[in-house]
C-alpha cells in the first residue's frame, strides 16, 4: 500500500476504532480522533518531504483495477496542485479537530463522521480516476450533512438540507459530464490523464464544460450559486465552518484545475471571459453584501464569496501568474478564513451571540483575542506582508494584461474588504466596552494552539511566498502550456 492509500484510509481506520468504543468515553474518543488527524498530518508532511519539486507529472501514483467491466481503476496520484490542497486539508483537519473539543453531545458520532469527512476530502484531492473522484466527492457530502444537521444552530435542518440538495444537484450535472466524457473517449475510460490526451470537438467540450461547471460552481460557490454558503456557515458548528470554508470550497476550484482545464482546454478558454465576469461580480457583490451584515459569521461567509472570486478570476485569465495566484489564493484563503471562523467561534462560545452591533470595546477585555482577530482580519483584507496580499496581488497582476477593466473592478473588492473588515473590527473591538461583556474571558491556550500554526503560515507565506510557490510552479507551468495559455 502506497503512501497515498495510507493517507486516504487512515481516517477510516480511526473511525472504525472510534465506533468500537463505548459512547460515554468522550475523552478517549476525542484523543483518538486527534491522534488520527495528527497521524494524517504527519503523513502529509512525509509526502511533502518526499515530493520531487522538479517533476511536473503525477507522483506517488498507485493504480489497481477495481471494476473491470467499466474500466474503473483505483488510481491515486499527486502533483503540485493536489499537494497544496493536501497540506491545507491535513493541517486544517487537525486544527479543527482540536477546536472540536468543545462538542459535548453525541461525541462518538461527531468524531466518527468527522474522520469520514476527512477521508472524503483527501480522496477527492488525490484520485485520478473520475469514477473514484465522484465517489469521494459524494462521500464528503454525507458526513457534512449530518455534521451541520445534528450539531448545528437553530436553523440547522434548513441549512443542512439546502446544502445537501444544492450541492447534490450540482454533482448530478457533474456526473452527467463525467459520463459524457467516458462515452466520448476512445477507448472508454475514466482516467483523467488519458482523457486529457483525447481531442474532443469544441461543441462537445462546451457542453461538458458547462455541466462540470455547474457542479464545481455550486461548490466554490460562484455567484449566483452562493446562497447555500451563508446559511450553511451560520448554522454549522465552528470546526465544521472551518472545514467548509478552508477545504470544501476549494474542491470546486480544484475541479477546474484537475478536470475541466486539462481535459477541455478549448472550452475552458471559450468560457474564460464569462468566468472572469462572474468572478468580478462575485468579488464586488460579496464585498458589498459582507459590509451589510450584522451577523459576524455571515460576514465572514460573504467575504469568502468575495475572496473565492479572486480564485476564479485567476483561473479565467490563462496566464501562469494568474494560475499561480489562484492556487495560492486557495491555500491562503483556507488559512485566513479558517482562522477567522475559529475566532468567530471563540467569541460565540463566550458570548453566545454573533450580532456585531451588540459588541464593542472588547479589545480592552480580550487583548490577546483582539490582537489575533486584527492580525487575521488584516491578512484577509490583503495587507502586504501577510499571505492574502501575495495571492491577490498575483491574481490581479496575472489578470491585468488580459482583462484590464475587470482587474480594475476587482481592485474595488480589495477596498471593500478593507471596509467591511475594519467596520467589523470597530464594532467588535473598538469603542467603549459594553458592560454586558465585562465578564468575558480571554482566549484559552487550546484556542490559541489552533490559531498559532495558521498565523505562522500566514506570515511566512506573506513574507516569503516562494516556500509555497516552488511546489506549485512546475505543475502549473505544464498546465498553462497544455491549455494554451500565456506563460510570460
Amino acid at each position, binding site marked *: 500500500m502506497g503512501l497515498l492509500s495510507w493517507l486516504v484510509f487512515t481516517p477510516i481506520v480511526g473511525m472504525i476504532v472510534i465506533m468500537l468504543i463505548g459512547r460515554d468515553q468522550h475523552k478517549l474518543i476525542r484523543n483518538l480522533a486527534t491522534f488520527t488527524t495528527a497521524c494524517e498530518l504527519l503523513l502529509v508532511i512525509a509526502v511533502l518531504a518526499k515530493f520531487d519539486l522538479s517533476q511536473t507529472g503525477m507522483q506517488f501514483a498507485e493504480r489497481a483495477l477495481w471494476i473491470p467491466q467499466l474500466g474503473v481503476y483505483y488510481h491515486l496520484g499527486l502533483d503540485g496542485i493536489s499537494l497544496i490542497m493536501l497540506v491545507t486539508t491535513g493541517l486544517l483537519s487537525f486544527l479543527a479537530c482540536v477546536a472540536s473539543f468543545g462538542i459535548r453531545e453525541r461525541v462518538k458520532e461527531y468524531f466518527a463522521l468527522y474522520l469520514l469527512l476527512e477521508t472524503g476530502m483527501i480522496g477527492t484531492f488525490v484520485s485520478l480516476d473520475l469514477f473514484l473522484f465522484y465517489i469521494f466527492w459524494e462521500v464528503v457530502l454525507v458526513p457534512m450533512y449530518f455534521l451541520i444537521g445534528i450539531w448545528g444552530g437553530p436553523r440547522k435542518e434548513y441549512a443542512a438540507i*439546502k446544502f445537501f*440538495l*444544492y450541492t447534490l444537484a450540482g454533482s448530478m450535472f457533474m456526473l452527467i459530464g463525467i459520463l459524457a466524457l467516458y462515452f466520448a473517449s476512445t477507448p472508454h475510460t475514466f482516467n483523467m490523464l488519458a482523457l486529457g490526451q483525447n481531442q474532443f470537438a469544441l461543441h462537445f467540450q462546451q457542453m461538458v464544460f458547462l455541466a462540470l461547471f455547474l457542479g464545481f460552481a455550486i461548490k466554490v460557490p460562484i*455567484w*449566483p450559486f*452562493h*446562497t*447555500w454558503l451563508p446559511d450553511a456557515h451560520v448554522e454549522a458548528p465552528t470546526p465544521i465552518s472551518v472545514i467548509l470554508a478552508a477545504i470544501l470550497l476549494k474542491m470546486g476550484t480544484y475541479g477546474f484545475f484537475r478536470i475541466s482545464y486539462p481535459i477541455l482546454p478549448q472550452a475552458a478558454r471559450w468560457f474564460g471571459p464569462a468566468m472572469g465576469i462572474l468572478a468580478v461580480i462575485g468579488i464586488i*457583490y460579496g464585498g*458589498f*453584501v459582507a*459590509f*451589510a*451584515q450584522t451577523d459576524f459569521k455571515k460576514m465572514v461567509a460573504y467575504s469568502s464569496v468575495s475572496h473565492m472570486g479572486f480564485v476564479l478570476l485567476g483561473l479565467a485569465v490563462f*496566464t*501562469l*501568474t494568474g494560475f499561480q495566484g489562484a492556487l495560492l489564493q486557495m491555500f491562503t484563503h483556507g488559512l485566513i478564513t479558517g482562522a477567522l471562523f475559529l475566532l468567530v467561534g471563540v467569541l460565540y462560545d463566550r458570548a453566545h451571540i454573533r450580532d456585531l452591533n451588540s459588541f464593542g*470595546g472588547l*479589545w*480592552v477585555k480580550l487583548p490577546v483575542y483582539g*490582537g489575533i482577530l486584527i492580525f487575521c482580519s*488584516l491578512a484577509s483584507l490583503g*495587507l*502586504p*506582508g501577510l499571505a492574502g*496580499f*501575495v495571492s491577490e*496581488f*498575483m491574481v*490581479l*497582476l*496575472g489578470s*491585468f*494584461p488580459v482583462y484590464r477593466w475587470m*482587474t*480594475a473592478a476587482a*481592485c*474595488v473588492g*480589495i*477596498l471593500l474588504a*478593507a*471596509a467591511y473588515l*475594519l*467596520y467589523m473590527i*470597530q464594532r467588535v*473591538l*473598538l*469603542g*467603549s*466596552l459594553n458592560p454586558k461583556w465585562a465578564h468575558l474571558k480571554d482566549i484559552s491556550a487550546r484556542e490559541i494552539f489552533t490559531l498559532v500554526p495558521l498565523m505562522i503560515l500566514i506570515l511566512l507565506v506573506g513574507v*516569503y*511566498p*516562494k516556500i509555497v*510557490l516552488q511546489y506549485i510552479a512546475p505543475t502549473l507551468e505544464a498546465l498553462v502550456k497544455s491549455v494554451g495559455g500565456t*506563460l*510570460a
Partner: protein
Amino acid sequence: MVIRAVLIPILPLLAFVTIVFFGGALKRKSAWVAVGASLASCLLAGFEIANVIGGNTLYANATWLVVNRVPIEFGVLIDPLSAMMLFVVTFVGSLIVIYSTGYMHKDPRYPKFFAYLSLFLFSMLGLVLSTTLVQMYLFWELVGLCSYFLIGFWFEKRSAAQAGRKAFITNRIGDIGFFLGIATFFYATGTVRFVDIQPELAHAYAGSWILPVSALLLFSGAIGKSAQFPLHVWLPDAMEGPTPVSALIHAATMVAAGIYLVARLFPLFHAFEITSQVVAVIGTTTALGAAYFALTQFDIKKVLAYSTISQLGYMVAALGVGGLAAGSFHLMTHAFFKALLFLGAGSVIHGCSDVQDLREMGGLRKSMPITFWTFLVATLAITGFAPLSGFWSKDEILLSAFNHQHLIIFWVLSLTAAMTSFYMFRLLFLAFFGKTRGKFHAHESPVSMTIPLIILAVGSAVIGLPGSPVMDHWFQSFILGGHGEIHHVNSFVVAVSTAMCFLGLLIALIFYIVQPELPKKLAEKSWLFYSASQNKLWFDELYDASFIRGFKSLAGILFRFDERVVDGCVNQVGFKTVALSRVKNWIDQYMIDGLVNFTGWAVRTTSGIVRLLQTGVIHHYLLILLLGVLVILYTVS
C-alpha cells in the same frame, strides 16, 4: 555594508517584536527598547548617509517573487534621495520616540504605543529604502496600517476609531490607483525597479498614452498618502491620535511618503506634459485650499493638520513644476519645523490638561517658556522668515515655479504663503499671548519633552542652510547628483515671499493683538466666506452624503437582493419542488400505491382464510399429516 543598511529597519522591527511578546513583563521599560532601537538605527543611518555623501550609492537586491519570468525584488537602495529621507525619519523619529516617553507616561497602554511606533519606524524605513515599486507598495500599506493603529490608539473614543478607519480606507482608495499604476507600468516596461526609471526609459514611450496613465495612477497613491485634494479629508480627522503620532506620522514622515514616491519617479512624471501639469495643479489647489481651511480653525491640532496638507501641496506643486530639489528640500525642512510645531502643540495640550481649543488658551508664554520659544522658532520657520529653514525651501519652490514660467502657480503659492503666515501667527497669538481664557493651570512639560523641542528648534533654524547660497546650494547638487539645473536666488521672488510673510504677520497682529474684536465682526459680515472655511467647504458632508451613504445603501440593497432574489430563487425552486411533490404524492398514494395496496389486500384476505389452519397445536398438525398420508395411500392404491 548591506547588512548594516538592512539593520536600519530591522532594529525597530525587533523592538516591535520584543514589546509585543514581552511588553507585559517589560511594562514601562519597553519604552527604552523602542528608544534604543530608534537611536541605534539613527546611528547606523548616519554611517550610511556619510557613505552617500562620500559619493557612493548602496544598492542590493534579492528576488521575492517571479512574475512573468521577471523577478520582483526586495532590497535596499541608498542614494541621495533616500539618504535624505533616512536622515529625516531616523533623526526626527528618534526625537519623537523620546518625547513620547514623557507625553504618554500616564497611558495604561504605554508599551503598546511604543510597539506601534517601532513598527511604524520599521515600515517607514523599509519604504524609504525600497528598490522597487512593489516593495514600496508593501511598506506603503504597512505605514498606513500603523497610522490606522495609532490614530485609533485611544479606541474607546468612538471618534478615534472612526478616524482610524477613515484614514485607512481613504488611503486604500488611492492605493488601488497605486496598484493599477504598478501593473500598468510593469506590463508596459517590464520592470518595477526604481533604478530603471530614468529619463531615457520615459522617452522611449513618448507619444504613447500608457506611461502617462500609469504615472497618474501611481500619483493617486501619493494623493491618498500625502492627503492631497480630493483625498485630503482623512488627515484632519487623524488628529484624534496622540500628538507625538501626529508629529511623526501625520506631519514629518508618513505623509511625506507621497512626495517621496513622486520624487523617486520624477523622471517619469517630468517626461510628460500632462502628468507634470496634473501634479502641479493638484499640489497648488491643495496648498491654497488647505491654507484657506486653516484660517478659521480653533482646534490647535486641526490648524496644524491643514497647515501640513497645505505644505504638502507646496511640495507636490514643486515637483509638478519640475523642482525636484526644491520639493525634497521642503520635505526635509518641513519635517523639522512641522514636527516641532506638533510637539509644541502636544506640550501645550499636555500642559493645559488636554485642552485643544485655542479659544480657551492664551497667555501661555509665561507659564511655558521653553515651549513658547521653540514654537516661535517653528512659526518663523514655516512662515518663511530669513534665515530660518522654511525661508530657503519655500523660496526654492517659488523660484522653480517662477523660473519655469508657471506664473499662475507662482502667484497662488505666494498668496498661500501670506495665508500661512496669517494662520500661524494667529495660532501663536491666540495660544501664547493675551490672557488665559480657560480654567486650568498651565505648567511646563517634563525634560523628556522639552529636550526634543530644543533640538528640533535648533534643527528648524539651521537645516535650511545646506540648501542656501551660504553653503552654495550644496543640498540641491547633492539630490540632483549634478544632473539638473540649480536655481540661484532671484531678488524679485525673495521680495515677494518676504512681503507675503509680513503681510500675513501684519494682519494677524491687527486681528489678534491690536483689535481683538475685528475678527468677529468680519466673520459676521462675510459669513459665507467664513463658514466655508470653518466647514472645510463641506467636503466631509459632501462625501458622506454621496459616497458613504451611497456605499452603505448599495450594500443594503445588494444584501436584500441576495436574500430575496438570488436566495429567493433557490428557495422557490425548493418550495415549488415540494409543491409538485405533493401532487405527485397524491397520485402516488391513491393511484399507484392503491394498486399495490389492492394486491396486498387481496393476498391478506385470502391468507386470512387459510391461516385458520395454523392452530399452533402440534397435535393438529400431526393429525393433518396422518390424514394426508392416509389420503395419499388411498389414492395411490
